[in-house]
């Protein structure tokens, strides 16, 4: 109410990083492509650039690792993949999120019919 967009910012905190992890759960992802996909989700993120500090945090946490690969055209590409810790973190988030969402839905009255 006081700061426009503060609610969506608050909701993003703590959830966006797990959306990022989920996108690379099955296969490693080309960083630029990953950022493009997430950047297009206006509910989740404000801009592509803000995802890079988040990816850096995931690297530091040891949840993702990156590999450089040659590109058929242009500069080498950086690929992001989940580590064992990243898989564990995502599993843990799924459990927490489900009960969190159910509780909020029940109390706020947004439970799907």
């Amino acid at each position, binding site marked *: 109410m006081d700061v426009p967009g503060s609610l969506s910012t608050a909701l993003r905190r703590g959830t966006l990083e797990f959306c990022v992890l989920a996108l690379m759960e099955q296969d490693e992802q080309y*960083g*630029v492509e990953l*950022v493009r996909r997430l*950047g297009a989700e206006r509910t989740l993120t*404000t*801009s*592509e*650039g*803000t995802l*890079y*500090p*988040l*990816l*850096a*945090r995931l690297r530091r946490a040891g949840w993702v690792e990156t590999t450089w690969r040659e*590109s058929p*055209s*242009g*500069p080498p*590409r*950086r690929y992001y993949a989940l580590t064992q810790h990243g898989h564990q973190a995502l599993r843990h988030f799924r459990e927490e999120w489900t009960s969190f969402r159910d509780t909020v839905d029940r109390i706020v009255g947004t439970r799907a019919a």
Partner: protein
Amino acid sequence: MNTYDGLVNDYLRAVEQALAGVPANRRGELLADLSEHIAAKRAELAPDQETEVEVRSILELLGDPEEVAAEAMVDAEPPPPPPPILIEPKKRSAALIWVAVTIAAVATMCLLGVLILAFFSVSGSNTSGEDTPARPKATVPAMSDSVAPTLSTPPTPTHS
């Protein structure tokens, strides 16, 4: 590569300035990530045919430099909470001093305890050895010193 490099450099410089409060290694990391992203996207465009609009569009999608930097600041904030758990060098030496003081205090107490025990066991062995502790010790030598001569002198006249 061409005239639009200036646009890119201006953008990166704006991010760098907004990152003033962020540690140098993180600042460098983010700037490297952003310039890689820009280079990769520019490489997707038709070589040597990119337009100013295309380059500007790449930068616009990245977002406001202040906003991007602010996200890195959020990341830089978490480190402060952990330090209380870690023992700082200053506190560490203080803690070591306290450990030393405690050890010294405990050692002194133990030593005192041993001395007290030793004192009681010595006086205890005296009491158990003799029925009347104070008297015999004090009287026996006193008797042998003062009484014995006086006792020994009288018999001498009787003998002679």
